[in-house]
Each structure stands twice: as C-alpha cells, then as structure tokens.
C-alpha cells in the first residue's frame, strides 16, 4: 500500500464530496427530472386482489379519454412475446397479468397519456373482472400438501416450493448435537421489509423510431446487467440499448431487479415512437417492487458445559412471494445465509432452507445486505445472547470465548467460507470500553431493584461481501467481476470510468481518491464517470457492498498498470534505467538523487508527446477485476435501552458502534455509511414492516403504514473503528455500506430482550413495537 501525501487528497482523507456541489444547489438530475420533447406519461393499473383469475379487461372508456395515447394489457404484451420475463433467480415473472393475478398490486394494465394526471384519470375507467382464488400468505402453509398452486403455469411445478438448499455437514452436526451438554434454540421470523429509497423506481424510455436505438434513463443499481437482460427480454440488439443512470435517490437493493414497469414503458416507447416516462408512486414501490428478508428461522446452538460452541443447526423457510426473483448469486439459493456461523469458531454446522411461493410481491432483494447475510447475522447473534442467559454467563464473555482468534485467519468456516482477516476480540473490547459496559451492568442491577428496566444488547457480526470470485458467483449467468477504465489526459488530468453505480455512496469522490493514491493525480483532477453503458466498461453494479471490494480493486490495479507504463516513460525522460527509479506519491525520482524527478503530469504529457521508440502512445487502460476471495468486514455494536414496563415503550440511551471495514478510503464517507446503516438497522428492529392480512392485502403500502424513523426517533450514534486490512484486496479495503444494517438489528433486539429477560422474556420478534414488548411481559407473567 502506498503512503499518501496529503496534497493529492488520496486514501485516508476525509475530503468533501464532489457530488455535493450539484445536490446542494438542487441541480441533481434524477430520472423524474428528465423531460424529453414529446414525452408521454405511463400509469399502471394494479390488482386489488392477491390471487384471482383474470376474466376480462375492458379498456374502451380509458382509450377514448382525451389525452390518452394507448392502453396496454397483458394480451398486448403477449402479442409481442413480452408477457413474461426472466427473474434474477432463474425463474420467470409476469410483466402484466395474462392468466391470473398472483399478488396484490400486480401489474394488470397501463395507460400512456399526454400527462400523468390524464393517465391516472384513465386508470379509473378501465374495468377488470376477476374471479377470486384462495390466497396463501403463510409460506409454511404454502408448502403443505394440498395448498392451492400459485405457479400453475409452470410445467414441472406441482407444489409451492421454489427451492430446497442445504449447506454444511448434516451428519457431523447431528453427531455434535448428540453429545452436547447444552442446546439453545430460537424460532424467529425476520419480517418482510422494504428498502424504500426516498426516490422510487422509474424510467424514461426513449426508443428512436428512426434508428431503433433505445435510450433508457433508469433507476438502476446495475446498468450493464440491465442492458443485457433487456436485450434478452425485449429481443433488442444489445448494441442499440443504452442504459443511462442519472442521479439515483438511494437504492439499498431496491433498484437491482428489472421491474414490469420498465419493460412496459420501453415497449410503449417502441410501439408509439415517443419517449415514455413511468415514475412509481410510493405505494407501487412498497407493494410491488423488491421486498427484503421474510425468513422464518429455527436455530439450534450446541455448546459444552464450559460454553464452547460445538455445532449450529438451522432450518429455515423463506417466503419468496409469487415469483422467485431474489437478486442473488445463482449457486446459492438462500443467498449467503451460510455465513450464519458468524464470528465464532464453529466446528460444524448444517443449514437447510426451503423457499415457498406465496401470494405476495416478489423480490427478495439484498436490502443493504450481501444476499441474506443480514438474516444470518441476526439469527446467530440472537442465539448467542440467549445461550449466555441459558448458561448464566455474561453475553460478552461468551462471545470472547468463542470468537475466531486473530491467529486463525485465514479461517475456513464450517460452511465453506474462507474469512480473509479479522480481530474480533479487539473490536468488542473497544466497544465495551467505550460504552462503559461493566458500569452499565451495575446500573442495570440497581435500576432493576427500583423497578426500572435497562437493557444492554451486543452484536458482534461478521459479513461476507464483495462478490466476487467468478468461479462461484454469478447473477443470471453474468460473472461477478467489475471494471475500471482510466484515461490520463496529456495535461495530467484523468477520467475514471467504472462499471459500478453510486446511489449516494460518493463514488465520484472515493474512486478519485484511489486514483490519487495510486497514481499521484490529485483527486480533484480525476473525474469519475458511471451509469452510461455506452460510455463505461461492463460491470455488475453496486449492491452487496461490492463497489469498493471489486471496482475499487479494479481502479487500483489499472492505476498501478498505468504507473508502470509511467515508469518506462519516466526512465525515458530522465535518461536512466527503470530499475534506478523509485515512486513517491506523485513522481518518479532517481534513487539516491531525489532532485532528479518527473511528476506524473510530466509523464502523462510524455505519453502523448514524447514516448520512447516503439512504445504504444497514450496513458489509458481498462482492467476487469475478478476477486480472489470475498471480503469479511466485521464489528461489534452495543446498545443500551430503557424500557417502560407499563407501556412497553423503549428508547435507545446509548449506541456504540465499532466497525472494521479494513482500510478506509474516506473516513467521513465511511462514517456516513455507518450512520445510515445503523439507522436502517434501528428502523427494521423497531418499525419497518410489510405485513399482509389473510386475504393477501398488503399492510404497509405507504409511508403512513410502512414506518420510517425520523430524526426524532433515530438514536445518536457513537462510532469507533479498528482497521484490519483485507490481505487480498489491492488497497486493503473491505466495503462498508451494509455492515451496520447487517449487524445492528440484533443489537437493538438483544438490548430490549436483555431489559426484560429477568421477567421471563426470551424473545420478541421484529419489529419490536411497544405493543409487542408489553405483550411479551404480560405473557411472561402468566
């Protein structure tokens, strides 16, 4: 790793964000800000029922309304072979309903009109007749024999099972359980929630009737993958598809899949010959696009009498909704849930997962999460807390006893992961010290005597991110590499083009810092471009904390390659041999004669004006990075809560977070990512819930029911760090966008449970509402 002088504003510096200059002026350009000449507006009619045969659609009145240009139904799409599309998990999904509705909010028809107001007027005029069918909302019931078949259109599908998947060693795990002194069990539901970025999904589809070129302005976290999938879905030649992703108002996994609205708007533009804009309403976003979680988990943890962990067994049922559309690597049907052994030296483990189709929206996106790592982290951290209670030991002490030790890295887990690096005891020690853990435990005891409830929760998580390693990881067949193209101009300024897609993470700033550190060009002289598939190299996109681990590595590698070319140029300029040169921050100098030097800017100029004979001109290059391994960020979170026994209300008193994401490129941005993640973790623990009634009606279809914490509820965070670099990443970084959302829910829940465990409460499922806390206390009393 290079040591960076401050003047190039490279890695390790909290420089201010470049992107902010436009945002603070209100000059960002989000998809809905785009207005093209002749642009039409599309609105979608959605099913009010969750499971029903489509009997008829009458669009006559809607089509006749002044200002309506077209009404599109499933039959219209079917005529163009667009009624169904592939999902990211190898299943198929209806674009618009042609046979039957499978979830409430499913797309039935669309109106394209001169204005959005008129489009919505016309929706009211479409008449649809449905024939209701029995609804299944419980995935466990969906898997029972005789349950009504949701996917009756699939030839080989005879039940509602969408996958069965196992990981680990069943025999060895059963054997370990047989001789265990203590077995601790937990049944818990990680509820369905939704990433709900503040900007909903949308598209401006602009298919040029003369050239056939389709320019799609899209809310996309993965523009290139979307281009390829569009080519496959729509049958358009890929060279004629340009995905342009403008500013994105948050993604959090929501903008990874392709949604029916995108396809319909593109088809409409193609058929009508005018640009078509479709912007989701918030309700549409919450009821129909990629949900997250919804895992019903049963975990058993086997320990010996000393509290040493022996084995872990998990059985889970996932609720995948009507279409198996999880955004996850092909090989792993329950994502990377098998990281469930967490931060602990677990000799053996076995996981058995079954996925169920239900009458709910599809999705299963990795909401600020690396493919089901969040569910896994939650389960193990809740289990460990309960195991400590069972053993009568301190929850921190039990963790220390079982942590993978620093000297055990690289550590091969029981389910096949190779953890790259870590120092778990150090992170937890720091967190305990910052919280004043022992003192707080004493206060807890004292308050209990006064009838007041204080609880302390711990979560020591380990994530697996940065997919990663193309041999094992692909999405829809596309290997999960990423790319960076660096063009250094003659005057020493540069453009970096990356295949990943920022949605607020600050790539324009941090990726320029990587170039600054590796190539010595000040980060302010490096423009970072992304999100235009005609302009930037192929990449798989931003999710699963993969930008820094993969594209960040690609950036470092291409910068180093150009630096090596620069060495040849410098030798030529200084008239010495390459071996006589050394690199320092932003220049080459002659060993032993530091005054004899050329700057990177001199070298760049020479690449275009004065290259040695036979050298290919220019200082540009592209690198596609295929990671040798995943990265494993970790940390320890401590939460102290006060609980009101009379009403169940709980309030966070302290929240201490220690994160280790390896080397931090921009500490300010890293801290911002952690703040955001801790908030979403709190939101999931406390209030965010997409629920359904027995008829499959979505409860949580807008922001009055799907609760997002405001500044008032959100705790104040105390953040700290340890730095354990990734040994295989070029700059030692691990990725941080999701750690806090992955790790923190268990800490909040553990804290509330800790406050009331002496009353007999051992579990409260999320979201931990005041009503549930109160109920748990009442139940424990009786």
């Amino acid at each position, binding site marked *: 790793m290079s040591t960076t002088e401050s003047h190039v504003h490279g890695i390790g510096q909290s420089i201010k964000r470049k992107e902010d200059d436009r945002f603070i002026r209100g000059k960002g350009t989000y998809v809905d800000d785009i207005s093209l000449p002749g642009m039409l507006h599309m609105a979608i009619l959605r099913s009010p029922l969750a499971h029903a045969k489509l009997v008829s659609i009458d669009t006559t009145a809607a089509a006749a309304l002044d200002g309506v240009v077209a009404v599109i139904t499933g039959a219209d799409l079917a005529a163009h072979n667009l009624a169904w599309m592939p999902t990211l998990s190898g299943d198929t999904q209806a674009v618009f309903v042609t046979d039957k509705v499978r979830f409430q909010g499913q797309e039935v028809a669309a109106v394209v009109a001169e204005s959005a107001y008129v489009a919505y007027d016309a929706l009211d005029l479409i008449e649809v007749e449905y024939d209701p069918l029995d609804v299944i909302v419980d995935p466990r019931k969906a898997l029972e024999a005789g349950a009504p078949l949701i996917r009756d259109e699939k030839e080989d599908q005879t039940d509602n099972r969408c996958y069965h998947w196992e990981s680990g060693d069943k025999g060895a795990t059963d054997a370990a359980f047989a001789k265990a002194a203590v077995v601790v069990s937990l049944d818990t539901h990680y509820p369905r929630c939704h990433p709900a970025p503040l900007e909903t999904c949308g598209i401006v589809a602009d298919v040029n009737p003369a050239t056939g070129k389709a320019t799609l302005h899209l809310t996309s976290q993965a523009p290139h993958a979307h281009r390829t999938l569009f080519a496959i879905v729509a049958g358009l030649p890929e060279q004629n598809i340009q995905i342009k992703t403008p500013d994105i108002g948050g993604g959090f996994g929501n903008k990874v899949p392709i949604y029916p609205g995108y396809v319909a708007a593109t088809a409409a533009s193609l058929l009508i010959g005018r640009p078509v804009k479709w912007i989701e309403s918030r309700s549409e976003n919450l009821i129909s696009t990629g949900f997250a979680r919804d895992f019903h988990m049963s975990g058993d943890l086997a320990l010996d009498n000393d509290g040493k962990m022996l084995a872990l067994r998990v059985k889970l049922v996932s609720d995948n909704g009507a279409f198996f559309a999880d955004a996850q690597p092909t090989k792993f049907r329950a994502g990377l849930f098998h990281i469930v052994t967490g931060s602990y030296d677990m000799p053996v483990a076995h996981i058995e997962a079954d996925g169920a189709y239900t009458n709910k929206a599809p999705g299963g996106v990795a909401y600020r999460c690396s493919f089901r790592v969040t569910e896994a982290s939650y389960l193990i951290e809740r289990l460990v807390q309960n195991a400590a209670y069972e053993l009568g030991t301190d929850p921190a002490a039990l963790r220390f006893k079982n942590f993978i030790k620093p000297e055990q890295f690289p550590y091969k887990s029981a389910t096949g992961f190779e953890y790259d690096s870590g120092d778990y005891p150090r992170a937890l020690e720091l967190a305990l010290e910052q919280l004043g853990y022992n003192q707080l435990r004493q206060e807890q005891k004292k308050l209990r005597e006064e009838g007041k409830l204080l609880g302390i929760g711990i979560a020591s998580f380990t994530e697996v991110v940065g997919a990663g390693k193309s041999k094992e990881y692909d999405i829809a067949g596309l290997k999960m590499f990423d790319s960076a193209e660096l063009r250094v101009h003659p005057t020493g300024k540069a453009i970096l083009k990356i295949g990943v897609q920022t949605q607020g993470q600050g790539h324009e700033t941090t990726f320029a810092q990587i170039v600054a550190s590796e190539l010595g060009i000040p980060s302010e002289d490096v423009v970072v471009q992304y999100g235009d598939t005609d302009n930037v190299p192929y990449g798989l996109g931003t999710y699963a904390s993969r930008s820094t681990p993969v594209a960040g590595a690609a950036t470092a590698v291409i910068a180093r390659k150009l630096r090596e070319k620069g060495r040849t140029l410098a030798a030529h300029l200084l008239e010495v041999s390459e071996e006589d040169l050394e690199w320092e921050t932003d220049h080459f100098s002659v060993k032993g004669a530091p005054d004899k030097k050329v700057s990177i800017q001199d070298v760049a100029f020479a690449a275009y004006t004065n290259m040695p004979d036979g050298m290919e001109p220019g200082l540009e290059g592209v690198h596609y990075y295929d990671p040798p391994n995943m990265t494993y960020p970790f940390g320890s979170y401590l939460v102290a809560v006060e609980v009101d026994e009379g009403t169940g209300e709980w309030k966070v008193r302290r929240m201490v977070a220690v994160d280790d994401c390896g080397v931090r490129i921009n500490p300010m941005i890293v801290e911002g990512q952690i703040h955001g993640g801790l908030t979403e973790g709190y939101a999931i623990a406390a209030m965010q819930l997409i629920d359904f009634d027995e008829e499959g009606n979505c409860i949580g279809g807008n922001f009055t029911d799907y609760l997002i914490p*405001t500044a008032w*509820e959100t705790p104040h965070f105390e953040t700290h760090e340890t730095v354990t670099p990734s040994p295989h990443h070029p700059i030692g970084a691990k990725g941080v966008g999701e750690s806090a959302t992955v790790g923190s829910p268990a800490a909040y829940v553990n804290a509330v449970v800790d406050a009331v465990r002496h009353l007999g409460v051992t579990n409260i499922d999320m979201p931990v509402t005041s009503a549930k806390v*109160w*109920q748990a206390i009442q139940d424990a009393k009786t």
Partner: protein
Amino acid sequence: MFPSRFDYSAPDSLDEALATLGQRADETKVLAGGQSLIPLLKLRFAAPATLVDINRIPGLDVLEESNGHLRIGTLARHNQLAADSLVGRRYPTIASAAPQIADPLVRNLGTIGGSLAHGDPAGDWGSVMLALNAEVVVRGPTGERRIPIDDFLVDIFTTSLNEDEIVTEVLVPQPEGSFGGAYLKLERKVGDFATVGVAVHLELDGDTIARAGLGLTAVGSRNIKPTNAENALGGNKCSDELFAEAARLAAEAADPVSDVRGPATYKRAVVEAYVKRGLAEARDQARARAGRT
C-alpha cells in the same frame, strides 16, 4: 399522486363560501388546512366536484379570550396554537397537544376546525376539546349553531356538522382556580396517528378537584369522554389511589380494537397508564400554579 378534476373557489367572505357550498353541498368539500383532505384527493379516496377554499376569509384565525372563553378560529393552525403565549399560559392541555399533532410541516397548515370536522377518532383535538368541555361554533344557511363537542363528535368520520355548514370557531371555557393539563400520546413515530392519546384537564380548589376533564383518542369509533372517571375525580382530594381508580374507569370506557398498532388489551393498558400519569402531571402543574399565586 394525482387528484381527479374538481372546481375550485376561494371566496373572501363566509357568506360567499356558504353560498357556494349550498349549491351542491353533497359534492362539495370545504378546504381548510388541507392536510387530511388533499392526501385523500391525491389517493382518489375522495373526489368532490367542488372545493371551497376558506383560507382567504379574514377573521377565521382568531385566537383570543372573551366572554369567559378562549375563542379559537377554525383556521388556527396547529403550530399557531403550539406557539401562542396565551395558550401556553392558560391552556396547558392545548399547548401540550398541539406540537404532538402530525409533523412540524403539517402543523404549519393543518387547522383545528378542519381536524375536528374530519371526525377522525384518531384525531387529537377531539379528545382535548372533550377534556375541556369545548363547544364548536358552526355557520350554515340558517345561521349559527353552538354545538357541545360531545354532541359534535358522532362516529368514525362523522360529526353533527351538516353538509351545508362550516365550522367557524371553537370555544373553550376559561379555566378557574389553579389548573393543569396534559396530552399524552403514544405514537409509533413522529407523524403517526395516535395508538392511544389521553387528554387531561384538572382544576383544583386547594387539593380538591373542582373539575376534571378527560378525553381519549383512538380507542373507539370517536374520541371518548370517560364520564365515569371524570365523576369519580370531581369533588375529591387528589391522591394516587384516586388517580388509579379514575385511570381504571377510563380504561373501562375505552373501546379499542386490535390492529397493527397493538391488541385492544394493550391499548386499554396504555389508557390506564397514561391517565394516571396525565392526572399526576396536571395535579403537579396545578399545585405549582397555586404556589405561584
């Protein structure tokens, strides 16, 4: 989201507004703060043919004491009530409730008249006004009516306001003796409707309760006035036992349903806890006021 079409008028006198309203009263909606109505229009849950915007009518935002009452104009915004110094000094239940309604931005537009006329059992003002024995003044084609709040609130989204009438004022009796009050609201987050809300008003003569007023939010098909609890308090000396008994009676008067905010048993328990706490807080305030005079 996008409202369906409607006609709009913004008269600058009440008579004009009433005349417009009278033309097609069943298809016309009065637009005050709009913070409940416009969301309904956007979601197309409401599609009136006409909106009569009363925001340009002068005098409807009056806020003053006269003739033994606090007169609150129908257009008084929640934030106006939260910030008003007279309200802060003399009407602690109102001052306590106002900043807990919706969120700060909604409070800048939302009005007391609009809120009461909406008749939402989860609305906060109904309970406050029940605790304070307020009256609602309405104007219609045949003149003015003064309706006791307990008669004004009828059922879920139903009041005794006729379609051709407009709420013009709320009259709150001035407190006597040493007084205290509070509004306790359990909400899942800022901006949420109440899971449970409890309005408390106490007037003390020494340590004897001269008048007790209570109102309950979101635990019935309208805001509830737990008269048994009020009666139990009136004429008695303040004590924790008395407050506990009143709280029990108030919880009995509550008629909540189980929903996403919690089971009915829970909501009853919160009513009981909050009434107890609210009474203690109101008593402490009243004692402090007595100490100051």
